[in-house]
């Protein structure tokens, strides 16, 4: 499996990029050449490769004289943390909904799929913005909002698979042996939808990171003191004409990270479940 995964050069590229991002997210401040919060108004908006007091600003400085590279490294943490945590929340909600709706497709199933359709009818970004505006920006709120507004895809795919699986002999056998609904759902159905969950999750991480950065860009993500790629792009927005690097570089980091995750997700999809090619991401 791992060997087959590594046979795709693009997937290997994706893995290598993610390795760098993960290392940046974990070690953040220790890798950063400067303190990411350190302001130096005298050397504001310096272009890349400018000499600073304590060394070279390889990627320049922002409007407050903070080192762009250092903020970029530390900013990886929020993106990755929010992306992963929000996907865990979505998966918990979506898989539960999907399994229940597929296994018991009369009243409960219909009601659950009704909730799915309601969710789909609400433009996600505005819902997320409104919830953050009501509850206030914090890391926990952001993860909860993203997680609770993006579970629909799990619910739909898992329900469709459960509808097929529950007619198979091994489920019937389990039922004949006296297994109750919770046991069938958790021990027999859940393991069989595992591959789909892995594929959806890997692709959803990429979307979540994009969503997180959009919200941070609009100032409704995490509190502004924490460096995020979305927040950095927002900071650089007003200086785009004469200091392009402040907004351009964090966006590039975001873009490459999302491409890398999508490459890994695409490879996993090809290997684990080719049927999911039609996934409506």
């Amino acid at each position, binding site marked *: 499996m791992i060997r087959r995964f590594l046979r795709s050069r693009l997937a290997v590229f994706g893995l290598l990029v993610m390795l760098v991002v993960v290392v940046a997210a974990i070690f953040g401040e220790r890798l950063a050449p400067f303190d990411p919060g350190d302001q130096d108004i005298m050397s504001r908006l310096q272009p890349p490769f400018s000499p600073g007091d304590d060394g070279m600003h390889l990627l320049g400085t922002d409007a407050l004289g903070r080192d762009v590279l250092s903020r970029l490294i530390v900013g990886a943490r929020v993106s990755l943390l929010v992306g992963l945590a929000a996907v865990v929340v979505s998966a918990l909600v979506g898989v539960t909904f999907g399994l229940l709706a597929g296994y018991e497709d009369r009243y409960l199933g219909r009601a659950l799929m009704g909730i799915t359709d309601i969710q789909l*009818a609400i433009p996600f970004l505005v819902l997320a913005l*409104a919830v953050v505006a*009501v509850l206030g920006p914090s890391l926990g709120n952001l993860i909860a909002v993203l997680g609770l507004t993006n579970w629909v895809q799990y619910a739909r795919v898992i329900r469709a698979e459960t509808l097929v699986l529950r007619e198979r002999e091994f489920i019937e056998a389990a039922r004949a042996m006296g297994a109750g609904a919770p046991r069938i759902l958790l021990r027999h159905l859940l393991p069989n939808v595992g591959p789909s969950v892995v594929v959806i999750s890997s692709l959803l991480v990429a979307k979540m990171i994009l969503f997180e*950065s959009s919200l941070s*860009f609009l100032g409704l993500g995490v509190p502004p003191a924490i460096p995020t790629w979305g927040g950095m792009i927002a900071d650089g927005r007003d200086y785009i004409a004469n200091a392009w690097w402040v907004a351009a570089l964090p966006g590039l980091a975001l873009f490459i990270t999302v491409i890398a995750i*999508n490459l890994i997700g695409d490879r996993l999809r090809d290997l684990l479940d080719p049927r999911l090619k039609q996934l409506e991401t």
Partner: protein
Amino acid sequence: MASLLLPRLVYAMLVLFGVAIAVFFLIRIGGDPSALFLPPEASLADIARFRHQMGFDRSLTAQLLDFLGRAAQGDFGRSLRYDQPAMQLVLERMPATLQLSAVALVISIVLSVPIAILAAIHRDTLIDRGGLLVSLIGQSFPTFWLALMLILIFSEKLGLLPPSGRGTWRQLIMPAFSLAVYSTGIITRLLRSSMIEVLQSDYVRTARSKGISEWRVILVHALRNAVIPTLTVIGLQVGALLGGAVITEEIFAYPGVGRLAIQAIANRDFTIIQAFVVLMALVIVSINVLVDVGYTLLDPRLRTR
């Protein structure tokens, strides 16, 4: 036709009803909504007066019933900032957003259909890889960053296009394009894989063996069937486009509902948010009904059900 439409319309109404209930609770998840609407420096007496004026001091059931009754008539209360009916404000901005989303949808279809067809007929060649790359890049672009980079290049550096506003078609190019990128990626990928599937089917082989020209086989026989599964996704993309328009409009200072919604959030003008979410849901649900019906009409196998 009526039997096709009626159950779907009833279901759509139920979904909208659900959206209205969600919107009602949206401003109440943090407790008493009065504090949300008023500035932090409001006095306790102000808050109490406002709470009574808005009816927030009544029982939750009474508030919900009242809200739903008014919402059914399109009345979402007045915007506190503009002192106008919230729904009227949203409706006034709606044509601009619909125009932007429609142009974006046309752009993504015009781009993705040829790419997907070329990739599918040249499967596993460089052209196919290029098509997959387009789809990957399209799905990975942070829209707001792309928008800023377009402004940087085409407005600031080259001076070719205006960076903001609405009125001329030149002001529509950049917002519509940046909005279209994501959908282009998705439609390309799905259409490509359903084209590949269709091109291997028996009726395509039959059509070829009858001596019909290859392009006619591809464009008439294959494409028509490959489009069917893609249509659902295009329907879902309309929702994504309307949602994405929020951020695109904000960056290009495009006067649509999305920008209004962002400003409303900044101004704590929650009646506008409620009206906006319900109206968007109405548009999305209507399009899904249309797609559903179109799907059935396009695929004769589904008609007899």
